[in-house]
């Protein structure tokens, strides 16, 4: 059969970088085709070429076997190619229907007036075809991220898209929402829509993908059937080597000093009376569903958000933390889940990002900065953490996610924090770099730092943690030893208030 889309020998270079070389993809109608590869493998570039955002330098694109030129997003839409970006592009104050038909609103009275009734009816029709229960008149800003994504999909369908590109669509969704999304994807398949699905999550691919194409370093590696191919093989194709899935070796911490102790912190309904402690050299994992309050706890300890009550102790001494400055002075560092917004000054270079939390140390008389010392410090951590960058003057935003994360880690190591709180340390980081981050966390614990890791990926929590704290609806529902099963964690993560009247005791020993 003729492929719906065939991209052949695609070439693309940016100044100084060859992004794609001999890249291939063929998409059949009615299939979900996963496009996989580490960050920087060229997946997004490939899809931006298909969606008309970039122009290819070489190769050809066939649609239904016929060569096509796609020079703009508009042309791609006209050809029936829709893309749903990782960051949604909706206008929050407009309704769902207005968003879907923006720029193409049905008119009446000879084109002078908007036909709001037809607008809503048309949108309702698309929602019905998706089996989605949503009032087209709802302002999008009030919808959950998942619902907003559905609106984006509806918008793509309104162009009669036969090809739908989804870039990490589940990154911000919870399990129920993911199920709803997958149901819609399944329906689109039966209607013959071909879907290119970019994701880092292996379990999802197993659930919905028909075939998987793997890219590495801008090149085509291979296409395999999703169901029959073991995950290890796909990962090996992605990284060019096999990864082991080991469990942590838990050292005996019983004689180690308690570095950080948190007692009874609370904030509104987000954090309810949470207490726990971390010892020197220990990695304490925080598991829980989205919205369980883990990030909130971290931010409250760090002073990034105010808290209603509760105390923080370092080495048994109470510390008064009202703002991040206080936390850092007490030796607590926080690595946010959202590096681009809260971690990095992306427009500044690697050197300045690494020294950002310690800048005053490099200021001499009159506030004059000692650039040579800053350079030495930056280079030392670039070497130590194996940060891949041409130099310490490279702008941080030009580095890959894994290397950006290492810069943030370097920032806190240079500040010499005893307690490091990692919030989703491997989000948006490819498989190979994840392993490096894991090794780094283990090394930091061995050096005697107390480490807290918040992660939504259970395998990650299990692999890293010496103890696992589980939260649900703002409560700490229990603390499990390393080696706990996924079932035990999920049980605690879904332990709602009614069934859990006693306060969590696992924490304060």
């Amino acid at each position, binding site marked *: 059969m003729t492929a719906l889309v065939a991209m052949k020998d695609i070439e693309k270079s940016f100044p100084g970088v060859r992004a794609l070389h001999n890249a291939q993809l063929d998409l059949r109608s009615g299939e979900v085709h996963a496009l996989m590869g580490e960050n920087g493998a060229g997946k997004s570039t490939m899809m931006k070429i298909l969606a008309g955002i970039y122009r290819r330098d070489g190769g050809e694109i066939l649609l239904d076997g016929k060569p096509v030129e796609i020079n703009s997003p508009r042309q791609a839409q006209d050809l029936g190619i829709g893309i749903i970006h990782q960051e949604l592009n909706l206008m929050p104050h407009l309704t769902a229907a207005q968003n879907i038909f923006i720029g193409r609103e049905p008119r009446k009275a000879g084109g002078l007036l908007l036909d709001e009734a037809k607008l809503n009816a048309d949108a309702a029709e698309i929602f019905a075809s998706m089996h989605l229960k949503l009032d087209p008149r709802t302002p999008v800003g009030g919808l959950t991220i998942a619902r907003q994504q559905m609106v984006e999909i509806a918008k793509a369908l309104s162009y009669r898209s036969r090809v739908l590109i989804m870039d990490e669509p589940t990154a911000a969704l919870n399990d129920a929402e993911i199920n709803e999304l997958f149901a819609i994807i399944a329906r689109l398949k039966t209607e013959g829509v071909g879907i290119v699905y970019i994701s880092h999550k292996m379990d999802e691919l197993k659930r919905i993908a028909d075939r998987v194409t793997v890219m590495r370093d801008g090149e085509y590696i291979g296409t395999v059937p999703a169901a029959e191919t073991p995950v290890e093989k796909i990962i090996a194709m992605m990284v060019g080597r096999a990864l082991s899935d080991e469990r942590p070796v838990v050292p005996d911490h019983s004689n180690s000093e308690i570095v950080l102790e948190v007692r009874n912190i609370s904030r509104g309904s987000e954090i309810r009376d949470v207490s726990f402690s971390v010892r020197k050299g220990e990695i304490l994992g925080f598991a829980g569903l989205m919205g369980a309050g883990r990030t909130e706890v971290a931010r409250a300890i760090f002073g990034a958000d105010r808290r209603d009550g509760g105390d923080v102790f370092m080495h048994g001494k109470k510390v008064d933390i009202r703002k991040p400055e206080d936390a850092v002075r007490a030796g607590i560092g926080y690595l946010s889940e959202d590096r681009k917004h809260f971690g990095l*000054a*992306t427009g500044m270079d690697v050197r300045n990002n690494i020294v950002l939390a310690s800048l005053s140390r490099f200021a001499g008389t009159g506030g004059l900065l000692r650039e040579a010392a800053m350079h030495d410090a930056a280079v030392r951590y670039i070497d130590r953490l194996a940060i891949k960058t041409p130099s310490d003057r490279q702008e941080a935003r030009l580095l890959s996610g894994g290397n950006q994360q290492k810069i943030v880690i370097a920032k806190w190591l240079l500040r010499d924090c005893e307690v490091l709180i990692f919030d989703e340390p491997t989000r948006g980081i490819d498989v190979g770099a994840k392993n490096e981050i894991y090794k780094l966390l283990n090394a930091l614990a061995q050096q005697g730092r107390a480490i807290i890791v918040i992660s939504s990926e259970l395998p990650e929590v299990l692999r890293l943690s010496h103890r696992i704290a589980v939260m649900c609806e703002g409560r700490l529902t229990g603390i499990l030893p390393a080696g706990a099963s996924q079932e035990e964690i999920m049980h605690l993560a879904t332990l709602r208030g009614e069934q859990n009247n006693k306060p969590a005791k696992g924490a304060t020993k």
Partner: protein
Amino acid sequence: MSTTTSTANVSSGPRFSGAQHRLLAFASLIALVTVFSLASPNFMQTSNIIAILQATSVNGVLAIAATLVIITGGIDLSVGTLMTFCAVCAGVVLTFWGMPLGLGVLAAILAGAASGTLSGTFVAKLKIPPFIATLGMMLILKGLSLVISGTRPIYFNNSPGFTQISQGSLIGSVFPTLPIPNGVLILFLVAIAASFILERTILGRFTFALGSNEEAVRLSGVNTNRWKIAVYALAGSICGIAGLLIASRLNSAQPALGQGYELDAIAAVVIGGTSLSGGRGTIIGTLIGALIISVLANGLRILSVAQEWQTVVTGSIIILAVYTDILRRRRL
């Protein structure tokens, strides 16, 4: 522009770096000077060049102050009326109270620093958007200048040295062939000092960092409020210097003057390639921007172009300058 060419721009359009943008601004300045000197023999006269530089001094110093605030991602609409307020303060100290010259100078600079501290506090601590906070300050200072001066100009006839601040020539007293007025000398000294602070000191580094990602800086444990207030205070004291320059040139503090200067200052900053969204910018760019504006005004006047057309040209240059900046950024 057709869709085809606009997409082509994405992959192969003109590419400017920040340095190239400044080079471009500098090249436009040279081009303007060349065109005007070819068009009129009067343009390149030493006296005219000095007049242009002297005319740049006040706006240049104000634009340097505005640059600092704009790099933090803020904006300062109060630089013009703050300049006047500082001049009036100097007038009160020197003329009303009859104090020595040095105290008048100090009063202007301290008044600027105090006002900047206040604006910075509104922005940093009270979280009032910079546009609104400094718009309010602009009006407050305008009113205060009128109140303090009793709505009349204050003349500096009791302080004979005062006019020397801007109009004397230290350089000319050493090199009689180069009668460059002190006002111009001060502009360049302020530029060098501001440039040094921005590029080499911790305050400058945080100025850029705040504009680049303030929340990331805060979460790095930095007292962002303190640094932000410091930047506004520094900008305020530079406005104080501008106040001294203009008062010295007019030998009076004119309380009704000032409003409108902030727009010329911001125009110079923008033409010089500093991004209004913060995080990037240079003093040398701002200096070139201020010079472009004065050269245009001067050259067009020599060519007998009507005043009203001069503003049309300046406006067009602003739009052109920002458009080249957008072209540059599109490539990044």
